[in-house]
C-alpha cells in the first residue's frame, strides 16, 4: 500500500518551458511536504518545502503547490533549464510526530536544449 505516489516515472520538457512534477498521497495526517532533487551518483539535495497551513510556496524558479482536499502536491519549475535534469522526490510527513517521513518513488526529469 503506497502512501505516496509519483505517477510519472519520467518527464521530458523543452528548455524554457514549464516542468510540472506531481505527488499524490493517501494519509490526510501529512502536514509537512518537501521536494528533493537528485543527480546521478550524488545524494538528494533539498529544494523546497511547504507546510499544510499554506497552499503555495515559491523560491526563484521553483514553486510548490499543495491541494489538501485532493491530497495532491506539485512542483513547478519555470523556466526549465538543462541543469534541472535530475530525479525529483517528494517527501511527506507529520510535523512533530517522529522521524519516519515517506518518500515518493521519484520522477526523472529531462530538460531538452
Amino acid at each position, binding site marked *: 500500500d503506497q502512501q505516496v505516489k509519483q505517477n510519472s516515472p519520467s518527464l521530458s520538457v523543452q528548455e524554457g518551458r514549464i516542468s510540472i512534477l506531481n505527488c499524490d498521497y493517501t494519509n490526510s495526517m501529512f502536514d509537512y511536504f518537501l521536494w528533493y532533487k537528485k543527480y546521478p551518483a550524488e545524494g538528494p539535495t533539498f529544494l523546497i518545502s511547504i507546510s499544510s497551513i499554506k497552499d503555495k510556496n515559491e523560491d526563484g524558479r521553483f514553486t510548490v503547490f499543495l491541494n489538501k482536499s485532493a491530497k495532491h502536491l506539485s512542483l513547478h519549475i519555470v523556466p526549465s533549464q538543462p541543469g534541472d535534469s535530475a530525479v525529483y522526490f517528494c517527501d511527506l510527513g507529520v510535523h512533530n510526530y517522529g522521524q519516519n*517521513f515517506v518518500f515518493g518513488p521519484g520522477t526523472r526529469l529531462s530538460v531538452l536544449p
Partner: protein
Amino acid sequence: NAGVTQTPKFRILKIGQSMTLQCTQDMNHNYMYWYRQDPGMGLKLIYYSVGAGITDKGEVPNGYNVSRSTTEDFPLRLELAAPSQTSVYFCASSSRDRGNSPLHFGNGTRLTVT
C-alpha cells in the same frame, strides 16, 4: 565544509559476510539517518538517531545495526549480508527533527551482495 561523508562509495559482499558503512558529518547536527534506495522505489528509513547515545528503528531495520557514540559519526553495520540488502545506502543529517528542517545527504554507498 564537507557536509555528510560516506565511505566506501562501492562495495561487493558475499552472502554471509559483514561490513560497516561509515558516515560522518561536520555540521554539528544532532539528527542522523540511514536510508536505503532500491530501484524504482523511494528512500526507506533504516535507523535514525536524535543525538549521541540515542538510536531508534525506522521502517526497515531488520538485518542492520547502528551506534552513535559521537555527534559526528553514525555507522551502519550489516552482520550477515543477504542478497536482499543489495541497494544504495544514504546517510543524512539534519539540525532539527524531520518536521522542522530538511535533510542533508551524503553521496551514497552502492552495495551489492552476491
